[in-house]
């Protein structure tokens, strides 16, 4: 088997199944009455937290690839990204079904009135076009450059997700702030990665000009 085949037929299926782990664990515990006295709340929180975790994992792929040099890593990016969307769908469904019982009027009021719902809804909505445009065909149709710009929206979605979590807790903000810190590192790396060559170029440019300046000074006057 070539390396590419190995990824396609072995590694990817493994990752696929591992990513279903949180759902399997949650379902098992729900069916066996192992959750707390308020299982619906547990399901809401677990699906929410796993959406955020998968977003973080997705955003870790590129920095990890650049640092480790293992270019094949990017082949897993779409799958974990879609898993973030998948858990986001479960989380959103839990909310409209188990929390609001499809009361559309109440849901709309909630989205309009409650900032933490508004921003959570925004985080989820942003993921929808990204999921839709994730197939090879649509990626090609949209075009690489435009696709990349569109998919940078995932940064916004992740930021909204962290704020959603932060605005939800009553007093103990340690956990949402931890996610905020992780996200800051992941986005900070990207900023640094973007600026690094530009700064280097700017430095090189100023060095050249200063050499030119000094060489001009040293030139003997005729």
């Amino acid at each position: 088997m070539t390396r590419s085949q190995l990824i396609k037929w072995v590694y990817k299926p493994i990752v696929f199944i591992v990513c279903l782990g949180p759902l399997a664990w949650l379902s098992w515990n729900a069916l066996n009455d192992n959750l707390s006295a308020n299982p619906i709340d547990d399901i809401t929180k677990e699906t929410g937290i796993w959406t955020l975790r998968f977003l973080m994992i997705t955003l870790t792929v590129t920095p990890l690839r650049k640092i480790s040099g293992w270019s094949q890593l990017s082949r897993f990016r779409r799958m974990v990204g879609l898993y973030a969307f998948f858990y986001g769908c479960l989380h959103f469904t839990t909310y409209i079904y188990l929390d609001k019982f499809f009361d559309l009027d109440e849901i709309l009021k909630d989205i309009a009135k409650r900032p933490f719902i508004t921003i959570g809804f925004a985080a989820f909505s942003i993921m929808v076009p990204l999921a839709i445009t994730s197939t090879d065909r649509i990626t090609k149709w949209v075009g690489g450059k435009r696709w990349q710009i569109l998919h940078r929206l995932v940064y916004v979605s992740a930021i909204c997700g962290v704020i959603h979590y932060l605005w939800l807790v009553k007093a103990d903000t340690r956990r949402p702030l931890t996610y905020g810190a992780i996200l800051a590192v992941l986005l900070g790396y990207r900023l640094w990665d973007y600026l690094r060559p530009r700064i280097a170029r700017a430095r090189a440019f100023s060095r050249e000009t200063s050499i030119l300046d000094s060489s001009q000074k040293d030139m003997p006057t005729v």
Partner: protein
Amino acid sequence: MLIKRKEDIASSEITPESLYFNRREFIRAASAFGVGLAARSIFPESLMAQDKWPKGKKGPYDTDEEVNSYKDITTYNNFYEFGTDKSDPSQNSGRFKPKPWTVKVEGEVKKPATYNLEDFIKPYKLEDRIYRMRCVEGWSLVIPWRGIPLADVIKKLEPTSKAKYVAFETIFRPDEMEGQRRPYLNWPYVEGLRMDEAMNPLTFLAVGLYGKELPNQNGAPIRLVTPWKYGFKGIKSIVKIRFVEKEPPTTWNISAPNEYGFYSNVNPDVDHPRWSQKTERRIGEFLKRKTLMFNGYAEQVASMYAGMDLKKNY
């Protein structure tokens, strides 16, 4: 359906509750003996708890709604002194020692003193009260408390005419209460009631639950119960009762004044700034139910707030 209804399998079938209690009782008794503090229980030995509260005669303040299981009531708690997850109090309160215990009474009162809990309770007959408990987060339980009406205690303590409010304070023991090592709330936890609220016949000092001594996670050994207010008003593990002239500070109000007021009466028409208070999930039920004004105790308490703007005095 994903969620098993409570009727399918009683949790008592899953965990033999009697074994569980025997073990707990044994550990408690053994540890009390070990440190030589075997204070006599205020509960007779014969009172064994069962997971389901027996249907029987109901007192005038009791709800006839189905009582939640002992397991639900003792594993799903908010008691930030032991951590902020619902499961933290039951998991992290094992080291907490509710015996021996003293309650200090001070302030505008004729008989300021420090009482042993046994002496503090002794003059009164213990009652069972089946109350609804509505958490500010939007869930609720039906709990059979055992204890004494606060009004009886206050009458005996004889507050002076200057006493307009009653302030309560929780014990501060960061060694035994790991949540107190973190400053996410202003420790020690403090709460308060207006004097008429404190004297209301519903207001209750609980020392027991399901006919047993109060478990640590539920606020052992003595806690306040005000069923028409959000659960956090029911201050736990009380060590100080102070009669005061001015409205005392309360912990959640200090933490977020725009979200938690002094009164914190259950009110479906006044939303929490971040979520609706119109509905609640009764633990054990699948769909949410409507939240009732004053948690269904309007008949007993509404007159105390006549003429008050409840949107302002949330």
